[in-house]
């Protein structure tokens, strides 16, 4: 988990920042109608994201506080609160508290929720629901001072957290089964947040030292819990303790250690990275220009100038490489935390899940990666929540009790394919059609005429959810439509495949990068040109004179057919070099079908940072972009279709 901490801190801070900006906006500009709804939706999502991320990191205090804030935002969103200014005050206080907790977490602490704040939030929600001013809600719990015990940590939903320690007596022949019974009993009285040993260990008969420790969120009193456990035999001792309140958060004086930890990863805006790339490109061009100028210098100065330019070009090249590598990030940072998210969620729902991740080493542009975090977690939650059946139903269906979710990434030419598949109950096209019709997003006739596979895609439309019960897991309006929107905003596509009883697969087809493309570099005469690798099918070395000819042009036998071969130099109007006997032919995809492009030599493949062409070059047909090679040489990237059409 520690390796995700930096990422968590930076992402959580960003969400909290946006949340507080939104709150301020809400208060300042008395918004109404769709604008207000959109802003509240946004803020709700930020709180929701913080809750989800904190939950995955095991930071219960942050998750609980964010949950409360989300509740209150949910009430505001539904327009139930008559007292918005107080709610904004309270939510700002919650946002500040969350920021401070995130800072503590960045120093390695696991901050507890502020009980008083959580109580105020809970009261505000209750009051808003009853239509009362926020201050008037009944206290959710008696004042802490009146309680003999330490004040309990408020857990989500007005519950309290308890630690229950049980030791099974030595006379019991099957202590793990006893432990299991205790766990089951506690589960009936609240929600088991953690159990040591885990339920899996107990099932396997493991209960070290015959001791079981459970963290339970429950609305029951400690006495009621004790009474319930007293009905179980063979327990030597039972200790129930309400979790103590966290020490007050440290004064805002920042600890140097915390600062150092947070500064190891820095979140950089993708626009800034784009700017770096552009600037490095300009630097390369400028250095190349300097070298040219230097050639005309008189001899005594020329040597020194050359050395300076060499050094400059070396540095620029190095910088170029670094900027490139900063952009490309293995998706491991994104997918490695998914198994934990799924597991925790499954446990909460009494399901079992095994998550297999493949292709974590696949790299993708950071800008895309950043956008994918929320959507991917959502798809995963969707799979656990709606896809996987409970263990007993799975066994009835002849499946293993534990569901299997596969997160697989692979490169396909210039795309990264990310698939999340489960072996659950599948999606029912009929229900999705009905939901879409009920929501008015599609007419009944039109819905019925859709093939099943297309009907499944309706699930991505806003408001279409097939879940009968909106759970706090994947319901509450942060839906598949949001996933689809994000995927499409980075230039990707989302597809759903599903078959009943077999499972569901979400496929995210993503561009490798927003600004980097693999190019095949070729030489024609003295010119170096680039062809987008995505358009390249293959290459062959041939003697042009020996090729078959048709309508005056040579034909290359390729892939069982023939492709017409064009001389790339001639297409571009370049001066013809001395015709060698053997030429290389690149087979590329053009609009009218495959074509062969005869070139003098294949140089190799390179990751090219594409820069748009400025005028007048943008007017030249057949050129799509320019890139600058590490050696400083500018190279035009060709648009094959337009080149042939010219």
């Amino acid at each position, binding site marked *: 988990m520690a390796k995700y901490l930096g990422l968590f801190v930076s992402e959580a801070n960003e969400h909290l920042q946006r949340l507080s900006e939104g709150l301020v906006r809400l208060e300042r500009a008395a918004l109404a109608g769709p604008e207000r709804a959109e802003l509240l939706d946004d803020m709700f999502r930020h709180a929701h994201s913080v809750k989800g991320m904190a939950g995955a990191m095991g930071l219960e205090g942050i998750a609980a506080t964010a949950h409360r804030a989300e509740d209150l935002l949910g009430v505001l969103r539904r327009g139930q609160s008559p007292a918005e200014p107080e709610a904004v005050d309270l939510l700002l206080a919650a946002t500040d508290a969350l920021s401070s907790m995130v800072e503590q977490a960045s120093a390695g602490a696991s901050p507890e929720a502020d009980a008083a704040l959580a109580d105020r939030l809970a009261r505000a929600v209750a009051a808003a629901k009853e239509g009362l001013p926020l201050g008037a809600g009944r206290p959710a719990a008696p004042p802490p001072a009146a309680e003999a015990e330490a004040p309990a940590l408020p857990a989500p939903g007005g519950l309290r957290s308890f630690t229950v320690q049980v030791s099974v007596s030595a006379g019991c*022949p*099957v202590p793990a*089964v006893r432990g*299991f*019974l205790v766990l089951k009993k506690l589960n009936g009285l609240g929600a088991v947040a953690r159990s040591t040993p885990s339920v899996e260990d107990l*099932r396997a008969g493991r209960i070290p030292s015959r001791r079981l420790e459970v963290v339970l969120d429950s609305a029951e009193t400690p006495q009621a819990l004790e009474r319930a456990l*007293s*009905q*179980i035999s063979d327990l030597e001792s039972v200790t129930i303790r309400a979790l103590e309140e966290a020490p007050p958060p440290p004064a805002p004086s920042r600890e140097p250690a915390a600062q150092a930890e947070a500064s190891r990863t820095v979140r950089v805006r993708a626009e800034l990275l784009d700017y770096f790339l552009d600037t490095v490109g300009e630097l390369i061009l400028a250095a190349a220009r300097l070298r040219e100028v230097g050639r005309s210098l008189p001899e005594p100065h020329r040597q020194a100038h050359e050395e300076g330019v060499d050094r400059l070009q070396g540095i620029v090249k190095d910088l170029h490489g670094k900027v490139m590598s900063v952009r490309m990030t293995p998706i491991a940072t994104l997918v490695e935390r998914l198994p934990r998210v799924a597991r925790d969620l499954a446990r909460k729902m009494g399901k079992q899940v095994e998550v297999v991740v493949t292709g974590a080493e696949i790299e993708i542009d950071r800008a895309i990666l950043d956008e994918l975090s929320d959507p991917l977690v959502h798809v995963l939650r969707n799979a656990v929540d709606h896809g996987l059946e409970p263990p007993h139903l799975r066994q009835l269906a002849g499946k293993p009790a534990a569901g299997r979710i596969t997160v697989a990434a692979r490169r396909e030419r210039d795309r990264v394919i990310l698939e999340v598949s489960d072996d659950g109950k599948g999606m029912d096209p009929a229900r999705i059609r009905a939901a879409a019709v009920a929501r008015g997003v599609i007419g009944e006739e039109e819905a019925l005429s859709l093939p099943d596979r297309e009907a499944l895609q309706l699930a991505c439309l806003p408001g279409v959810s097939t879940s009968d019960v909106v759970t706090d897991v994947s319901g509450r309006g942060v839906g598949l439509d949001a996933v689809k929107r994000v995927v499409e905003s980075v230039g990707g596509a989302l597809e759903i495949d599903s078959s009943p009883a077999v499972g569901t697969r979400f496929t995210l087809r993503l561009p490798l990068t927003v600004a980097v493309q693999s190019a095949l570099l070729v030489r024609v005469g003295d010119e170096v040109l680039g062809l987008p690798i995505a358009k390249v099918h293959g290459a062959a070395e041939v003697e042009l004179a020996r090729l078959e000819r048709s309508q005056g042009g040579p034909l290359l036998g390729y892939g069982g057919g023939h492709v017409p071969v064009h001389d790339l130099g001639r297409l571009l109007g370049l001066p013809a070099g001395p015709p060698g006997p053997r030429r290389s032919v690149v087979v590329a995809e053009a609009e009218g079908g495959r074509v062969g492009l005869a070139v003098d030599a294949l140089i190799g493949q390179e990751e090219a940072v594409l820069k748009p062409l400025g005028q007048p070059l943008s007017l030249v047909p057949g050129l799509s972009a320019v890139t600058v090679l590490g050696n400083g040489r500018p190279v035009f990237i060709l648009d094959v279709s337009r080149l042939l059409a010219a």
Partner: protein
Amino acid sequence: MTKRVLVVDDAIFMRNMIKDIFSGGGFEVVGEAANGLEAVEKWKELKPDLTTMDIVMPFKSGIEATRDIIKHDAKAVIVMCSALGQESLVMEAIEAGASDFIVKPFKSEDVLSVVKKVLGEA
């Protein structure tokens, strides 16, 4: 008030033994069943305060019978009679809603202690 017990086991000698334990402990054994099907029927008819349930039985296992009974009344008190080596079955029964379990071979005072606790009498 004397608690009413239903004893479910496919072996007559086990039923007799358990009946003796309960009678000697101040309980009233109101019925017995030799398999899971019979157990569910008898339970519906008698609505006992407590049922002792063998796990492996013909026609319908004790686990399935437990599940069926709990469907009728989530508060039904069922104590599983298990043997060593049946741990995973017992856990399954607990998931199905069994309140507790005893492990064969058992002593009468152990049985009485477990059921009294389960009924909240201890």
